């Protein structure tokens, strides 16, 4: 019935796997996935917990629509306290893993404690069992995926795993499923590694039903027709993926370049979605092999690429000559524009390695960019880098740095701290382009003002996926606002945050909202699930989730002072493009935002707000 109504609790310390009924009262208040798992998490975990201690927990969670026939019903999330941010972390992934977990009859898995030696979890419908992972500890996600399928003679397993960096405490390790789909941010994979948990393999054959099949069929078909009739979801995303944005954002003067020293990248076109289609000079083939969809997705934004086998990065490495996940916009930006590297093949190689070893490519690229600036000003020397000449624009340096993180060299360990800790360590904290310890992604808040407020207030540290005001400020969805002004952005951010929080709790992909409004989504949830899932209620659920996350972060020790942006974004004006002369006007947006949220001027939810949302 949409929800499997059952959760799996895995105590890694004891080595036990137990089934529990899902708390349906909470499901009515928090829907599923991000919201519901966060509710479980805050009920069970001390906000002050050390993220890498056994007392932290890690939840893999589906939404009620995950695995149903709704378009994009692929998604699952990993919820924990993040080691990069010390805030609540919730990272979302597609591929086929989430739907398989739901089909095995589980809404979520709660991992607690720490195994005394490396283990992996195997779920075969109702059966769940921990296995010895000593043979795959110290190996990549890709190897782990193949090894588990071979070992259990089950090619139909869907597998989520961590790589070597996650085992070794690199603070921005992801959890990667299906070899190239990542629950990417905030170091959720590092938490998994700290628990000695290498992988989760699932086979699910039980089937999923919905509450009102007829209404569901209609709502789903109507919504699919909206996707098929929308230029972004039916043409731009399948053709160019999220990479459709590179040239657009660059022209807008909002593509952070060379650690956000500039806002436009002269080689943007070379790393764009368009460039991925161009035949290469060397072998006449384009970088892009084809587009791909996650489970149930009728958009199919995913990129499958193949690196030029003669490129220096893979020349003597046939293990990277096959097709795999290509660069998405955020990755192309972080590994490319932000480091000044305009070599698409080098970026694709680095992206492969991020997938192979489960690294967050945004933090990976942005940390390398910060290291390049430290190197430029002489704060970081050849001795620190192990001889790598960390110059902006050097594809060789980029490739060597990513390899260093994967291989765990001394320099790799330094980079593995993330930019905030790295820049602090070398005496230049202002050179980290991060908020709450997490690097901001591919939209410069000087050129897209609303994104400044988005980054400053995101509950998981700087992130575009908490309130994607780019949709309005750049693409005009649902209506066009001026990216260069701060007026009205506080309200815009709040609405996007609440909407996104419930979409992230449903099992659907946020990219549907390029085409779908809440009015397209609500009927699908309402038909699938028992309960009242009107637009009003869902927006309230979103607001409740947002405040619950906020409360956790405040209890964890965060204050309003952390709702800020890197000094560069607030003080150094954009040098070129439409935003030339502008900094981000966060101070003009933040007080209004607090007020709209029903928070005190110190950013704390008032009693009234909490009781209105049932959080008091």
């Amino acid at each position, binding site marked *: 019935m949409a929800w499997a109504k059952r959760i799996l609790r895995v105590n890694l310390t004891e080595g036990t796997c137990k089934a529990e009924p899902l708390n349906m009262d909470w499901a009515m208040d928090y829907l599923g996935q991000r919201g519901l798992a966060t509710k479980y998490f805050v009920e069970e975990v001390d906000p002050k917990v050390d993220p890498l201690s056994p007392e932290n927990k890690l939840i893999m969670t589906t939404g009620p629509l995950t695995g149903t026939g709704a378009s994009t019903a692929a998604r699952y999330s990993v919820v924990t306290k993040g080691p990069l941010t010390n805030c609540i972390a919730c990272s979302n992934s597609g591929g086929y893993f989430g739907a398989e977990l739901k089909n095995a009859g589980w809404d979520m898995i709660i991992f607690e404690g720490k195994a005394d030696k490396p283990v992996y979890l195997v779920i075969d419908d109702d059966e769940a069992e921990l296995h010895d992972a000593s043979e795959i500890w110290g190996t990549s996600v890709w190897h782990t995926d193949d090894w588990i399928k071979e070992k259990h003679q089950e090619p139909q397993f869907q597998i989520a795993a961590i790589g070597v960096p996650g085992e070794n405490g690199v603070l921005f390790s992801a959890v990667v499923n299906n070899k190239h789909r990542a629950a990417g941010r905030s170091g959720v994979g590092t938490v998994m590694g700290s628990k000695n948990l290498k992988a989760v393999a699932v086979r699910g054959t039980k089937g999923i039903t919905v509450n009102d099949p007829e209404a569901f069929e209609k709502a789903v078909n109507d919504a699919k027709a909206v996707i098929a009739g929308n230029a972004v979801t039916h043409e731009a995303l399948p053709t160019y993926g999220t990479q459709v944005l590179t040239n657009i954002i660059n022209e807008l003067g909002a593509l952070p370049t060379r650690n956000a020293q500039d806002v436009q990248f002269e080689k943007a076109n070379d790393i764009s979605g368009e460039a991925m289609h161009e035949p290469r000079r060397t072998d006449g083939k384009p970088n892009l092999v084809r587009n791909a969809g996650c489970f149930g997705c009728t958009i199919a934004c995913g990129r499958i690429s193949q690196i030029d086998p003669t490129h220096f990065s893979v020349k003597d490495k046939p293990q990277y000559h096959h*097709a795999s996940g290509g660069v998405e916009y955020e990755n192309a930006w972080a590994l490319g524009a932000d480091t000044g590297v305009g070599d698409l093949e080098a970026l694709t190689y680095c992206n492969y390695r991020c997938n192979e070893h489960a690294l967050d490519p945004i933090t990976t690229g942005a940390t390398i960019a910060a290291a390049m600036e430290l190197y430029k000003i002489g704060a970081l020397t050849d001795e620190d880098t192990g001889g790598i000449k960390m110059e902006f624009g050097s594809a060789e340096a980029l490739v060597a740095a990513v390899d260093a993180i994967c291989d765990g060299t001394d320099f790799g360990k330094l980079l593995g701290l993330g930019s905030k800790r790295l820049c602090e360590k070398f005496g230049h904290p202002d050179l980290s382009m991060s908020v709450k310890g997490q690097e901001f992604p591919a939209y410069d808040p000087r050129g897209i003002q609303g994104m400044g407020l988005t980054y400053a207030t995101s509950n998981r540290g700087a992130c575009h996926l908490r309130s994607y005001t780019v949709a309005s400020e750049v693409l005009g969805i649902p209506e066009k606002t001026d990216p260069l002004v701060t007026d009205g952005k506080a309200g815009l951010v709040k609405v996007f945050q609440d909407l996104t929080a419930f979409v992230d709790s449903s099992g659907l992909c946020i990219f549907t909202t390029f085409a779908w409004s809440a009015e397209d989504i609500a009927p699908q949830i309402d038909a699938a699930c028992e309960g009242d899932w009107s637009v009003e209620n869902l927006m309230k659920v979103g607001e409740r989730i947002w405040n619950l996350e906020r409360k956790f972060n405040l209890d964890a020790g965060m204050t309003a002072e952390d709702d800020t942006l890197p000094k560069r974004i607030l003080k150094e004006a954009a040098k070129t493009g439409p935003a030339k002369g502008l900094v981000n006007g966060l101070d003009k947006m933040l007080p209004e935002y607090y007020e709209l949220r029903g928070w005190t001027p110190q950013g704390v939810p008032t009693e009234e707000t909490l009781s209105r949302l049932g959080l008091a």
Partner: protein
Amino acid sequence: MDKALVIDVGKCTGCRQCELACSYEHTGTFNPARSRIAVFDFHEKGRFVPYTCTQCDQAWCQQVCPVGAITNEDGVKVVDAATCVGCKVCTIACPFGTVNYEPATGKVIKCDLCGGEPACAAACPTEAIVFTDVSVQGFEKMRAWAEKTDTAPQANA
């Protein structure tokens, strides 16, 4: 007009809407594991391949069934679940693996073209699966290749 499922592998994105639709049509649940069409992900080749029964004219499965549970209904090879004894001989006989035993029911399942309106083709967002005139299956492919054919300069043109 005889119709068949025509699959264009190049268009498939691996979304599995076809598996969802098939399982929903036949079992009332969203359950790719019980779909009669399967999509294979050859990740390292960047290729997704949907695969199902092609309704052979002289169907191996039909010919070997010892109890006559598989019949030919206007070209479609249909399993009568009430007659099927679950012996699985048809799954051995089918050279393509598209007849499969279902532990949940103790019977075999195969594509039955949903009685003339295949759910997979209706659900496919990319037209990788279309239900069309069987005699012109190659038409679109021929046209695509024809378009690529250079017109060499003619001697007397």
